[in-house]
Structures are given as C-alpha cells and as structure tokens.
C-alpha cells in the first residue's frame, strides 16, 4: 500500500473532515445547525433586537401574522414567534439532557455486561429487562406529575433519561459481545492491559456507530416525550416550550378559533427536527470510521 497516512485531525482540518459527504446527512446537519443557532442566539435576537416577548401580555389578542407579530399572537396576546424561539432553546436543552442521561446509562450497562459476562451480565441483564418491561409512558407521567414543576424542565429530562435507557442497552451489549472476542481485544488482554482500559479505549470507540445511531433516536424521542408531557400539562407549564405552546393552544381552543399560527409552528418545529435527526443518521458512519474519512470523491459512498 502506498497511500500516505491520513492527516491528523487538527482544528484546521477537522471541519472539512468531519462533514460527511453524504447529501442527506449534510441536509440533516444543516437543519440541526439552524435549530442550534436559533436556540443559541434566537432568544436574544427576538427579545432584544425585535423587542418581542414570549410572556408579555399585550393587548393584541389572537392576531394572525402581521408585521408587528410575524407569527401572530396567542389568546393572551403573547407573541408566538418569541415563544417559538425561546421554546426552541428549552426543548432542545431538555431533549439533549434526556438523551445524554439515557445514552450514558445504556452504554454503561451494555458495555459492562457484555464485556464481563457471567454474573455481572446476568445481573445487568435482569435490570435491563425490568426496565424494558416497565411501562414507560405511564411511569414518566406519574413521576413527572409527582414532581409537578419542581426541578423545572431538567427534572423531567432526568426522568425521561432514567426510564428510556433499557432499549439501547441491549444493542450495545450485543455489539460488545461481538467485539469482545475480536482478535484486537484478545490482543490487548494479552498485552496486559487492564479491563477498564480495554473497555474504554478498545471497545468503546468501536461502539460509536451503535451509540450514535441510538443517540439520534433517543434525542428525537426525548424531545417528543418532553413535548408530549408538556402538551398533557404534566410538565412545567411555567416554562415556554413547544409542548406548552401546544398545551395552551389546545386549552384555549386555538383550533376552533382557527388560530393556526399558534399550533402549527411548534408542530412543524418538532417534526422537522425529527426528520433532520433521521437524515443525519445516514452519514454518521463516516464520523466514526476512519476508513471512510478520506473518501471525498463523487460517488465514493
């Protein structure tokens, strides 16, 4: 083989290297980037620059979109666009926290159980099965209802993460089982590496494709779950999020009034984000497999 070694990932080369060549993934990433941008600077733009507030009760009640209120106003006279933008930040954050908690737990359980086998695996497997069987949504509703606003949206995120890890744990365990007997893991043990190091440095990086696949999925389901809870009025109704927008829209009979500008935007926001996550999944392999990183040619995929 005469190929030159792949250049190291530095700050300069990283952006070019990490953006997948896959068209679908690029679109997905772009969409998510927009969301992140909106979540990051949107509230500031909307509130400071445009002077709109998500909570101020103006007199303009149930106004359709106009120059002053680009997405109209709600029954209370609050600006929908402001709510949407601020809500983006809340929803994304909560979704990310929930997905992170869920992923960390599923990786820990799957990796440890799959690697050690024996008693550890049996115990962790039993734990996984218990959580799999527990009815997720009712449990979340009960827990969230019990919290009733205490701890804010992050408590809800934690609850969702704690109840949603079991499914991912299975796929990570299976992948670990298959990796564990691969020659390079056996080789690392023969070198005298410690188990912890092997798990973290040899096995875990090879789990990244599986992790990222379920990460995207759990991100989406977390956001959906949070939005769902908020919609049911069980989340913290004092925070502004897509779900609470939908809750209030429903409570105030927005559909009957024909105030589409109130519930359609949050609905679209949720849907499009979900679609974007799915698109990104197509290209996630490139990020984690160095073999695919160099291929920039047209049609190389």
């Amino acid at each position: 083989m005469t190929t030159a070694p792949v250049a190291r990932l530095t700050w300069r080369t990283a952006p070019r290297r990490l953006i997948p060549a896959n068209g679908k993934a690029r679109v997905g990433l772009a969409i998510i980037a927009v969301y992140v941008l909106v979540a990051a600077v949107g509230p500031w733009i909307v509130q400071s620059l445009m002077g709109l507030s998500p909570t101020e009760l103006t007199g303009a009640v149930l106004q359709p979109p106009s120059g002053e209120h680009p997405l109209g106003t709600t029954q209370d006279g609050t600006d929908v666009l402001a709510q949407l933008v601020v809500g983006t930040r809340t929803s994304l954050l909560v979704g990310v926290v929930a997905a992170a908690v869920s992923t960390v737990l599923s990786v820990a359980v799957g990796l440890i159980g799959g690697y050690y086998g024996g008693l550890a695996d049996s115990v962790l497997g039993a734990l996984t099965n218990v959580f799999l069987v527990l009815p997720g949504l009712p449990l979340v509703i009960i827990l969230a209802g019990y919290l009733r606003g205490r701890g804010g949206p992050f408590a809800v995120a934690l609850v969702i993460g704690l109840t949603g890890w079991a499914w991912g744990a299975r796929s990570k365990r299976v992948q670990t089982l298959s990796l564990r007997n691969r020659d390079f893991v056996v080789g690392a043990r023969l070198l005298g590496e410690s188990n912890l190091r092997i798990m973290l440095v040899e096995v875990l990086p090879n789990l990244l494709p599986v992790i990222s696949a379920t990460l995207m999925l759990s991100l989406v389901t977390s956001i959906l779950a949070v939005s769902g809870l908020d919609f049911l009025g069980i989340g913290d109704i004092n925070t502004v999020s897509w779900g609470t927008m939908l809750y209030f829209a429903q409570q105030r009979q927005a559909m009957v009034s024909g105030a589409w500008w109130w519930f359609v935007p949050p609905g679209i926001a949720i849907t499009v984000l979900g679609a974007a996550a799915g698109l990104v999944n197509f290209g996630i392999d490139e990020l984690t497999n160095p073999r695919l990183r160099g291929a920039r040619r047209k049609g190389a995929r």
Partner: protein
Amino acid sequence: MNLLLDVKDLSVDYGTEAEPLPAVSQVSLELRRGEILGIAGESGSGKTTLINALLRLLRPPAVVRSGSATLHPRSGEPVDLLHADARQLRRTRWEHTAVVFQSAMNALNPVARIGAQFTDVLRAHRRVPRSQARERAAHMLELVGIPAARLDSYPHELSGGMRQRATIALALVCDPDLLVMDEPTTAVDVVMQRQILRQVIRLQRELGFAVVFITHDLSLLLEIADRIAVMYGGRIVESGPAGDLYRDPRHPYTRGLRDSFPPLRGPMRRLHGIPGNPPDLRGLPPGCPFEPRCPHATPECAATVPALAEHGTDRVVACIHADDLGGRG
C-alpha cells in the same frame, strides 16, 4: 470445435470515472473442451475479478471496459458472456457454466433438504418430472461418494467434507461444459483438499467438462491442472503447460512464486520469497506491474508494459528478459 472459452483483451475497471483502478488489463485466454486451466495469483492479481466478469457477477463500481468473452457450448449457439441478455444468461448459467466458491460448504440452503436443492435446480432448467429429477440427484450424489439415502438429509446433518462434495455435485447436475472453481480449497484442511481435488479429477474424467481453477497456491495446480496461467497486477504474465511451467518458469514472478513453497522433501535451503508488497492498483507503474519487486528489472521494464510473447512451444511470457532467464530452471 475444440475451443470452449475464448477471451480476448478483457479489461475490467474498478472505481469511479475519475480514477479507475485497472483490476484486470487486457487478459486473453483460450480454454479447450475438457481442459483444466489453473489460474494462479495473489492479492491484486485480478483473478477473482476476471472470473466475476466472465460469470457476470460484477457489481458496481466494477465495470468491463473492453474486450470480449465467448463461450462455445456443446449444444446451442455461441454465447457472448459479457453482453448476453437476461434470458440467454439464465439459459447459460448452470446449463453450460457452473461455479463453486470458496466457502462452498456453506452455499447449501440450511433449511432445505439436499434432494430438494438438487431437484429445484434441475427443474428450473429442464422440464423433467420430479421422480426423474430425484433419480438424477441420487446419481450425482453417488458420483461424489454420498449414499443416495442422504437425499433427505439437511445440510447440517452431513459432515463438512460431504457438504463440500455435495456442492460440487450440485454444480454438475445439469452437465455443464465449464466448471469454475474459485479457491474452493482455501478454507479447507490439506487432507480434505486432497480428497476434493481427486474427486474433481475423477468427475472430470467421467463427465468431460472443462475446469477453470483459481487459487493462490501454485503447487496445488500441479496436482490438477493441464495448463496454468499466472496473473499479477491484473495481467497474465505467463501461461503454459503445468509441468513445463513449474519446471522451467520464464517469468521472474512465476519463478519467485514457485520458490516460495518450502520443499517437503529433499535438501533444505534458505528461501526468500519475493520482497516487497503486493501491487497496489492505485499506484501501478506505467510499465511492467512486477517491476518494483523484480530482481532482474531494467529501466525499460518500467517504461512499457511487456506484451505476451511466445517462448518455445506452447508458452507465452510477458517479460522482455524472458529469454535470458530461460533454462535456468
């Protein structure tokens, strides 16, 4: 007409339009009826790509760039292997050409009985009543030393060796003119390998089909092949009768390959194999593909690709120094 397979100047590229990799370059060969041709080559030689091209098993991004391949079956019209349409292909496959792949013993459907697999194949190609198909299946199994009672067994009920033999029998069930074997013994032990080769020779004597046998093991080909073609970097570098080629290789690669097998008997001496690495299709030199590793290379070797030229009776070599090396055994 004695010529069964006629391949002329076949070239297969692998990869994109912008940077095609020449997996097979200008390969020509002739196979006579009933002949056993061995194709020897290592990684990057193109032997498997060549066979896949002839069997129309190539998948994108591999594509035939040029050349022709014609099959002259015993019965029926000559077939243009590279351009036959779906209907012709279906008629040719298994009737005139059959294949045995590397993990042949795993090629059997695990959830179907052996007999059923044979009758399925037969009835897909011929209109025969089930009973007749079964008889033929039993006959084929017996030819490879498997008792007819096993027709109703599942593959996992047979031993590994029996499965291997059953696959070979399955390949021969429609009495093809050509049997292609792609590294059929590579994953198998040396004892079973011997058995399989003897089996194939016996069947070949009985049924008269021609064989193209692909392997990286040159010494193996001596047990089975009439003629050997040696491939390197996508080209045929030498071709001739098996014994002659082994005794007196004219191409440096053939010689190096032959000398890479430690002798089992006779005096022991230090051997060296061939230094360097297998060819990288991305960086093939403009001249002879073997030049980077060749102990006899001269500057002209790197400049132009040597053509296959005749050297003595029934031998072709693609090396401009072949004459100097000849006779040095």
